[in-house]
């Protein structure tokens, strides 16, 4: 092996050393935006029903599903704003788990819902999750940035998930079945954790 080749290979190997990358985003001026964006993503109790809602919307067809992309992030933002004035209701955790179970069951059944019902579920889910995330802000949190981040990630996730589900459904006959199986998984999680919550309430 030539000397220069060995030098370059050694340099590349050292450059690929597995160090942790710290971008220090939390210390930048936009730190609370990222905090708001990441907060719902760290809670499966929120991410799961978001994806289930997107898949449920996809089962209603692209034309109806488009409404979710508009309504859900707005409800999320509204929930966050409401949390600034109104404390989180005590039934919040139970309602959140009911939403996991209900959206999962609806996906498992590939339910065809009236648009009003679909949007109603999206509004309730958005308001609740917006309020739950908003309640996590502390005195030093930049509220505008936090709520903007939360709304942006809600928009991003629901748009990507809905679009992906609509595209996925266009194809072989097994594809809706795969999504329905996923819905049954979400429903099973919701039912069991709801049961646990009712038997032994957990903080949420």
């Amino acid at each position: 092996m030539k000397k220069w080749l060995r030098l370059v290979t050694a340099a590349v190997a050292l450059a690929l050393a597995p160090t942790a990358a710290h971008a220090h985003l939390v210390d930048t001026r936009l730190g609370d935006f990222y905090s708001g964006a990441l907060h719902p993503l760290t809670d499966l109790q929120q991410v799961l029903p978001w994806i289930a809602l997107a898949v449920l919307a996809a089962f209603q067809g692209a034309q109806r599903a488009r409404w979710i992309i508009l309504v859900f992030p707005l409800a999320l933002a509204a929930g966050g704003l409401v949390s600034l004035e109104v404390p989180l209701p005590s039934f919040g955790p139970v309602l959140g788990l009911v939403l996991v179970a209900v959206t999962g069951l609806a996906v498992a059944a590939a339910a065809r819902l009236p648009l009003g019902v679909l949007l109603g579920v999206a509004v309730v889910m958005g308001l609740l999750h917006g309020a739950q995330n908003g309640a996590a802000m502390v005195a030093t949190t930049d509220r505008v940035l936090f709520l903007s981040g939360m709304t942006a990630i809600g928009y991003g996730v629901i748009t990507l998930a809905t679009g992906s589900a609509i595209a996925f459904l266009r194809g072989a006959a097994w594809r809706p079945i795969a999504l329905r199986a996923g819905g049954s998984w979400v429903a099973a999680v919701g039912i069991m954790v709801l049961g646990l919550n009712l038997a032994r309430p957990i903080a949420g």
Partner: protein
Amino acid sequence: MKRDFPDAALPLALLMAAIPLSPAFAHTGTGVALGLESGFLHPLTGLDHLVAMVAVGLWGAQLGNPAIWVLPITFPLVMAVGGLIGLSGIDLPFVELIIAFSGIALGAMVAFSVRPPLWVAATLVGVFAIFHGYAHGRELPEAADAVSFAVGFVVATGLLHLSGILIGVLVGYEAGAKVVRACGAAIGCVGLYFLLGAVGFIE
């Protein structure tokens, strides 16, 4: 003076590159991560659970449409009911025996290529699902994060069904159908082993 690049430089550089410069955390698996991990491993580390889940997929594939999707979709939902029974504190009798027996019964169905009406197959699988869910549900309150534990074990269960379905696709071939039936026989034997263990014949 001309100095050659030593031959040991490259391996040394590779060795240095492989050493993580970030701190090693011995217990990163807290909260969501630990719940997901322990939940995911729960059905995989219990061979009696594992073979029964694979058998559901195998039998569904063997029975064909609509059983191939009805059984794996209904199983998690009925399993959730079993989980609720476990959470409620109700004591179901003979849980270990019936879980072991589920391996024998489902393995036998696959091995002998039994083709009952769909409702019979769904009922049989549903009864077993209640007992499997009950066993998982008893673990749920002890989990670090109940939601992630439930997600972990439901996903693992679903993937085991999928594994069974994918193996079961072999029924489309003459030799493959025999392989699938042999898998059923093997599952039945594993179930028998656990049954003998549950009644005390095997330590």
